[in-house]
């Protein structure tokens, strides 16, 4: 983007400076150039000011390294105060939904990251329908967004929809387990599922290959729609196309996470120290962590959000509206081509007001902090 910015800015300056305005009629540029090529820059500047938000869900049995992987991906420890449950407490545990939000800033770009955790999934003796609380949560977020969108004041809609779900598959099985299939089939039409092979450092390379093949076969066989990487345009350079192909061939990614730094070959790297060697998290020959990070954050984050908005949310919305219209025809009221949306109840109005006020408070707090910092710098 930066390389684009410079020549475009210069062009804009040239066009607007008074000296060239006189010469403009003599230049051919005027006849060919309108000047909206600077739009991406404008969008870029506005987004940087507004910041991005991303909601990521992690699901899988306990002990597969989910929190460690989240820590490695975003380099923040969201689980500092987590207390591991003992065996007695686990017997009566049900599936919960926990949200952790963190604001990350890098080179002036702000990201509001929300991680939705699902402790208790797949841990009980009887795991029938243990994905139901998760499915209900995703639906709730869609419903809330739907109501907000249909409401009167749409200025500050909070987008809590889940943009991506990382599903951790155990490396110890011979492929997908019945719980895995059940979960993915319940959620594949509602959220982008990215399956991962967890704790991949217990597999030798041939086993990893075989497991990936089996999982791919089983995903096809059970008709599960996991997140598909979009096709890259034909005018992209060869390097990018090659990277894209490699990415598609390594799905599902075999990942390792680590929140400790070890010394390997004189360098300090994130890794795990074993008596027989050191596993480096960021080494492409050891695991696919780098591919996952690039895909999730550096190249496909926006695409994930787009698919959530354009595909999953629209499916939900269409389904919801269909249900409402069918209910209306059942009640034998007058059929209207425009579906009558339920008016928000007074309680919902006040809730929305409270949420808006919360947002304003947060922004004012941020401004105060900035001013404090400026004063300190001076």
């Amino acid at each position, binding site marked *: 983007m930066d390389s684009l910015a410079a020549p475009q800015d210069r062009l804009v300056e040239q066009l607007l400076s008074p000296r060239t305005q006189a010469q403009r009629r003599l230049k051919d540029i005027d006849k060919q150039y309108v000047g909206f090529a600077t739009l991406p820059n404008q969008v870029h500047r506005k987004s940087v000011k507004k910041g991005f938000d991303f909601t990521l869900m992690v699901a899988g*049995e*306990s*002990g*597969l390294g989910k929190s460690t992987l989240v820590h490695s991906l975003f380099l923040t420890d969201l689980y500092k105060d987590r207390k*591991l*449950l*003992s*065996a*007695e407490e*686990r*017997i009566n545990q049900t599936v919960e939904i926990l949200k952790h939000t963190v604001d990350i800033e890098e080179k002036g770009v702000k990201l509001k990251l929300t991680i939705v955790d699902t402790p208790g999934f797949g*841990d*009980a*003796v*009887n*795991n*029938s329908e*243990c994905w139901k609380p998760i499915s209900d949560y995703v639906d709730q977020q869609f419903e809330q967004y739907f109501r907000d969108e249909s409401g009167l004041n749409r200025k500050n809609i909070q987008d809590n929809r889940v943009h991506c779900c990382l599903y951790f598959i*155990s*490396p*110890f*099985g*011979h*492929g997908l*387990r*019945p*719980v895995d299939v*059940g979960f993915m089939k319940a959620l594949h039409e509602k959220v982008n599922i990215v399956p991962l092979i967890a*704790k991949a*450092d*217990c*597999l*030798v*390379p041939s086993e990893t290959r075989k497991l990936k093949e*089996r999982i791919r*076969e*089983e995903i096809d*066989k*059970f008709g599960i729609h996991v997140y598909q990487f979009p096709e890259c345009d034909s005018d992209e350079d060869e390097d990018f196309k090659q990277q894209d192909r490699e990415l598609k061939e390594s799905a599902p990614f075999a990942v390792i996470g680590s929140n400790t730094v070890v010394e390997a070959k004189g360098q300090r790297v994130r890794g*795990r*120290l*074993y*008596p*027989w*060697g*050191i*596993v*480096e998290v960021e080494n492409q*020959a*050891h695991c696919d962590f780098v591919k996952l990070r690039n895909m999730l954050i550096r190249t496909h984050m926006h695409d994930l959000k787009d698919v959530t908005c354009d595909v999953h949310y629209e499916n939900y919305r269409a389904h919801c509206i269909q249900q409402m219209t069918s209910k209306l025809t059942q009640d034998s009221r007058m059929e209207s081509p425009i579906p009558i949306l339920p008016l928000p109840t007074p309680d919902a109005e006040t809730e929305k007001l409270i949420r808006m006020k919360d947002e304003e408070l947060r922004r004012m707090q941020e401004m105060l902090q900035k001013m404090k910092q400026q004063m300190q710098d001076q």
Partner: protein
Amino acid sequence: MDTLKESPSPCSSRHNSPRPAPCEMPATVGIEAVLDQLKIKAMKMGFEFNIMVVGQSGLGKSTMVNTLFKSKVWKSALPGPGVPTPQTLQLHSVSHVIEEKGLKLKLTVTDTPGFGDQINNDKCWEPILGYINEQYEQYLQEEILITRQRHIPDTRVHCCVYFVPPTGHCLRPLDIEFLQRLCQTVNVVPVIARADSLTIEEREAFRSRIQKDLKSHCIDVYPQKRFDEDPNDKILNSKIRERIPFAVVGADQEHVVNGRCVLGRKTNWGIIEVENMAHCEFPLLRDLLIRSHLQDLKDITHNIHYENYRVVRLNESHQLPRGPGWVNLAPVSLASTSAGQVTTSGPSKAHKRAQEEPKYEF
């Protein structure tokens, strides 16, 4: 007097039996020669050992059995892609005769594919308990016949190795349910499977959490504390108990490390040697199961678990309806031995009874 001490054993042709020189005054009677007699008899008859492996699929159970007995005892049957896992638990047993230095061991391995793999794993331990009790029942039926066989074939499960997945947190509810029920019927040895996914610190922390969980749920795994007979046993077994559950890695492929050929797993960052104590605790498991405690496992199965089962059956049989195959096991016909409750502090009583019937020692 001299005649008594001259030839200590009838098979005096054995080269390693102590033969006192004629001019010495030996102070021994020669009872230690009985050990040789026992050894010869054992070599002739061979040993039987029945082991059961329980755990979720993919935890390396079949590889572990192959590594333990250094032969392809078990070929794990992988279901094809998309084949649904069997709805009910099906146990299969495979028997092999392994020979080492003239000694034959009839090894029977019982596998439990499908354990803990379903979505609803309620009561998935019942087929396993059923199988174990069936073996006790078969032995009991043979034992109460009027004309018994000289050597009753022993299909009772002597040891159940339970594979705990290396989550690194603590025991799961399924593990606790299973262990609670099975420790009362059979000797259970829990192991941490696929331990190459845990670093040394994680392994130690996981182990201490498991030990705490076992204690708080009163699960008594092998070697059971209450069956320690004498102080030597206590010391030896305490050392083992500190390290239970062992963190094991199984491998059936050989690689060359520093010029030696070792069994191990070759990854991109190193080779995990199965027999190297610094890498994993497989040698401890092998020593426990085969080299030091094999006979003890069989003794405890016979003297305690089987006796408990027998007592329950004897006490309840007169209440059972007389269906086909009903056998009268009423206490009246077995007046000599007490059919009272064998409590857990009864190893001495059980041992006494065992000595009255030396036939079953082998």
